[in-house]
């Protein structure tokens, strides 16, 4: 995302209007030139390339736009560190240090003496002594993207940068695709955010998203997570985000807050990469199950409200003989809610919920004792990275056969 000094916006009547790039011949040409410049720079030193890009950046009226586009290109570049100068440096510094006990009259004489000791010309010594700084890194690969993609990326990154100061987001997702809604909620969970959720209408989710400590006035602690959530939201067909933000610094202090409102008409292009984890792999599991378990259905999980008010977001839903079994997977980064979920299952809540626990998680000191519970024996199974069809089938069968089961 764009950092603070690259952000462009206007404040009009208490509203923050991001200065988004429109796709015009001018902006496309600017983006194309920068992409071509960096892709043509493979094999050259970073410092030289950055210096060489200055005229390109200065051609545009809005220098900040060029710098922003270049920042996003650079984020995607891969550099190879320059050959280490450490051995030469060690020898040169040792030779120099030995002479510092009685320094020469001039620094030129000192440098020449050190260079001579190493068998180098003084200019070569100067050139190579710190020749392995980041500026000397060599460009190996620049991202292959179109100007349009870069402009889309810029607009999203600009809005994300503005959201870094947000305390909470009010989000509406209006999309009937339950798989997408599930994945957006999983993205939210992956970012360690909390939300109050209303889903009065089957197709519409209203969320107020913030971090756990937000209620305690821990103001901007979750800004990064909130900003990272935006690309997932923007994947929905219809959506809106509303955030109250402090005004940018150059607007002056004491102006209260300004409102940033974004929606599908803003023109942001979502990034499904941010939609959560393993969707393709989970699709793979569904295919495996379909192949190995004739008569079973496997589909995206539906949201599962619990009497406690908690909303379970199952990863899958397995259908057997007309009964549906939501499946919730706890990966290695999902340890802390497992105890609570098992406690709920112990109370007989969500009798058809199957829970899978990653073996890596199961070995942690906090989780290992939980797996000895009767609830886990009835509802749970272990998996490594991804559940197998066999493990899942056994867990569902066990739950069906359980006396306390459905």
């Amino acid at each position: 995302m764009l950092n603070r000094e690259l952000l462009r916006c206007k404040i009009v009547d208490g509203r923050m209007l991001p200065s988004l790039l429109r796709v015009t011949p001018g902006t496309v040409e600017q983006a194309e030139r920068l992409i071509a410049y960096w892709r043509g720079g493979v094999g050259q030193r970073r410092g030289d390339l950055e210096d060489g890009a200055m005229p390109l950046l200065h051609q545009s009226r809005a220098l900040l736009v060029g710098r922003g586009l270049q920042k996003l290109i650079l984020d995607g570049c891969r550099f190879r560190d320059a050959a280490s100068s450490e051995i030469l440096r060690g020898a040169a510094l040792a030779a120099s240090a030995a002479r510092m006990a009685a320094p020469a009259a001039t620094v030129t004489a000192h440098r020449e003496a050190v260079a001579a000791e190493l068998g180098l010309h003084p200019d070569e010594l100067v050139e190579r002594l710190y020749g392995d700084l980041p500026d000397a890194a060599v460009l190996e690969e620049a991202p292959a993207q179109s100007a349009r993609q870069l402009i889309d990326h810029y607009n999203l990154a600009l809005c994300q940068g503005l959201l870094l100061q947000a305390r909470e987001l009010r989000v509406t997702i209006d999309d009937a695709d339950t798989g997408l809604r599930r994945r957006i909620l999983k993205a939210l969970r992956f970012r360690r955010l909390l939300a109050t959720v209303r889903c009065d209408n089957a197709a519409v989710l209203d969320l107020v998203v913030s971090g756990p400590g937000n209620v305690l006035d821990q103001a901007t602690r979750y800004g990064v997570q909130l900003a990272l959530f935006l690309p997932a939201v923007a994947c929905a067909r219809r959506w809106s985000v509303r955030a109250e933000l402090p005004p940018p610094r150059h607007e002056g202090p004491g102006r209260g807050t300004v409102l940033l409102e974004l929606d599908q008409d803003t023109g942001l292009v979502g990034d499904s990469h941010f939609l959560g984890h393993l969707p393709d792999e989970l699709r793979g599991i569904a295919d495996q199950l379909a192949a190995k378990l004739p008569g079973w259905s496997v589909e995206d999980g539906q949201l599962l409200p619990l009497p406690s008010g908690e909303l379970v977001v199952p990863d899958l839903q397995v259908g057997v003989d007309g009964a549906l079994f939501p499946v919730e997977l706890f990966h290695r980064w999902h340890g802390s809610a497992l105890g609570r979920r098992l406690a709920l299952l112990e109370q007989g809540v969500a009798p058809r919920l199957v829970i899978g626990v990653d073996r890596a998680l199961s070995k942690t000191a906090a989780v290992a004792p939980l797996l000895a519970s009767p609830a886990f024996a009835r509802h749970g199974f272990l998996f490594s990275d991804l559940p197998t069809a066999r493990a899942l089938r056994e867990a569902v069968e066990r739950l069906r056969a359980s006396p306390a089961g459905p």
Partner: protein
Amino acid sequence: MRGPPRTTGLHHSLGLIRRQHAGRVITLRFDDGTLTLDQLGEHAALVEGLCVWDSRVSRHRAKASAYAELVRRLHGKAPYDDQAKAYEILELAEERPRALRAYQEQAIAAWLAAQRRGVVVLPTGAGKSYVALRCMLACNRSTLVLAPTIDLVQQWVHDLQTRLGRAVGQYGGGEKNLLPVTVATYDSGVLLMPWHGNRFGLLVCDECHHLPAGVTASVAEGCLAPFRLGLTATPERADGMHARLDELLGPEVHRSHISELEGSFLANYQAEVVEVALDPDEQESYTANRKEYLAFARRAGVDFGAPDGWQRFIAAAARDPQGRAAMRCYREQKRLSRASRAKLRAVWELLREHPGERALVFTEDNHTAYEIGRTFVLPVMTHHTKGPERKAMLAAFRTGTYPVLVTSKVLNEGVDVPEASVGIIVSGSGSVREHVQRLGRLLRPGAGKVAMLYEILSANTAEAYTSERRRSHVAFDGEQQREDFA
């Protein structure tokens, strides 16, 4: 926390009523750098002001830092199950105990009397880390030490391992090793707290003036440690945020000044300003560039005296070619005053005046540091210097293999180089704290040691004003100046 979104809306639509469970045990849990309390019921009044009701999870929630006060209020008055605390009771012992100096004893006694919370202000070189070690021994709880830089973290790890004779964890700088005694950078601490903020009973914040800044404060807020110690030589911050140290770590419990310890526990020192004239061509260029950028600023209505003056200048400079030219002029005049040929000659002359002595050369920016390094063939340590080479450079400096070390900012704070007796400030910001910390690198006592701090200024440039600002401290100008600063 894996916590899926909770449903206030669903709560209502399902017609659920939150039940109060009078007589039940209150459960205290650590949750993502905060505390949650279940079943407070009729005991809610006991913890008033510390908790808020979090409708998203249908529990009360408090900052993790409120743990000690919460437990104090609940203890003996309401049944509670503390599932939050996960720190250990240790049996720490010092390998080779040494006698405390009087001011160190006073500092520790004051900290203990303040319920083991508070900030100790001691000049650099006065043994702050030894005070911390003795506080750790007094607490015998899992301890997290936070420091601002990787070099300081490595120094703490080495010192604690040596003194305690036990393995010490490191978090940050490529290491992720959590042990009952662990040292981390502040940045790593921010990432650590949501997961492990309940694993430490004592939190030690070195150079704690960094703590109140922005998101860094969340380290102290997200840590449950009931015992807290802040260490610094320079608690005051220009933004006034040092007032938050009281809330985050506890009150200031002890302060000793350089002037009280100089000559006995700290080295004697002299500070000298060396003014050099720019070469005629550089002076001409400096004047022309400065005139042009100031003229642009005036035209754009920028007031550099205003708090947002610099931001406005940047915004104005980005708008058109004239602005960009003005920005180039600004940079050029800055470069000329910071790293003129005359300054470099002066550095060499000063090094020639102190042959065989250990000298630190400080610059404001990396570019100047490397220019000096290349020109004089000297070791340069910046944030670009990789970990092993950093260690090797510091070790070579300490042993005298490298008598001179050039650095921009990474050696400004905390790093222990007791052998240094000469400091040469080629350029710096107007920050009093930076200047005092740089002086502090030279003040570790040594037999007959008199430290010299030189500050090289370009005459007839704006550097004179910057220098005046940074020397507004008791260490340089006496008690009256300090009061003005405070």
